[in-house]
């Protein structure tokens, strides 16, 4: 029924859903970054360079999926806050744990 449709869209707060074309473009970007990540395996790069690069690419993919596919970019900030809260707490707590285990120095 059209009224429902209109209400749904009106309610969505006017934010746009990305088009399918946009989603596909996001996927292509993700694919390219993944290919670059995998490429590091085939090339000799010193660890001190490759690890930060890999982590940076990982973080980029992580946030790209969260922002576009999980729609966080368009949704209420409250959702982002919950997700980031969990992520931040996990990073902090487990980061400390790994530090106590001397992971960063002894691996």
């Amino acid at each position, binding site marked *: *029924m059209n*009224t*429902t*449709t209109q*209400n*749904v869209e009106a*309610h*969505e707060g006017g934010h746009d*859903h*990305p*088009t*399918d074309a946009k*989603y*596909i473009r*996001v*996927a292509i970007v*993700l*694919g390219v970054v*993944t290919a670059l*990540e*995998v490429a*590091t*395996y085939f090339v000799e790069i010193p*660890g001190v360079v*490759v*690890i930060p690069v*890999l*982590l940076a*690419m*990982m973080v980029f*993919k*992580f946030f790209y*999926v*969260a922002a*576009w*596919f*999980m*729609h966080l970019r368009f949704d*209420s900030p*409250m*959702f982002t806050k*919950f*997700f980031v*809260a*969990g*992520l931040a*707490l*996990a*990073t902090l*707590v*487990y980061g400390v*744990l*790994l530090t106590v*285990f001397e*992971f960063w120095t002894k*691996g």
Partner: protein
Amino acid sequence: MADAAAVDHGHGTGTGLSNNKLLMWVFLGSECLLFGGLISTYLIYRSRYADGPAPGDIFDIPFTSVSSFILLMSSLTMVLSLSALQRGDIRNNRVWLLATALLGSLFIGGQVYEFTTFLREGLGYTTSPFSSAFFTLTGFHGIHVSLGIVMLVSLLIASFRGTLTKERSETVEIVGLYWHFVDVVWIFIFTVIYLVPSPTS
């Protein structure tokens, strides 16, 4: 019918957000702590491979890259299925749901193949702290993916019974959130466990 959509999308709630969607995000926040614990355990134990194979000896990066790519693309098909339903395109909603389930199953198939290969190469569950941690982490992830596939198939069944309508797109959205999260965890695992250089024996 204004009430239906309004209520579905969270009108009448304190934050204006749907209860169900908020519940899923709250849950995903807690899942970060679960996977964080398993990942940390792996990282602490990855160099403790006893007499067995070390991670650097045994990982097959090209193979895992392909299965990682498959899982990544399943996120695309997931969001396409949602987008179709939000437009009222029931047929494509089903097509993309099926595609997501198939890609997920392919990923699981890849995991099974990888695990059996490792077993043949001398890395069993009980071989070393490294092996226990590796299989537990990837096993938990695999179980999450499998539960996701069950949910996707359930959505498909609901769709074929005619109960998965445009008004119910939030259900697909919420299953999608779970699916993308599971994908995002794998993005983390693939980089940190596989790609970052591992100890070799």
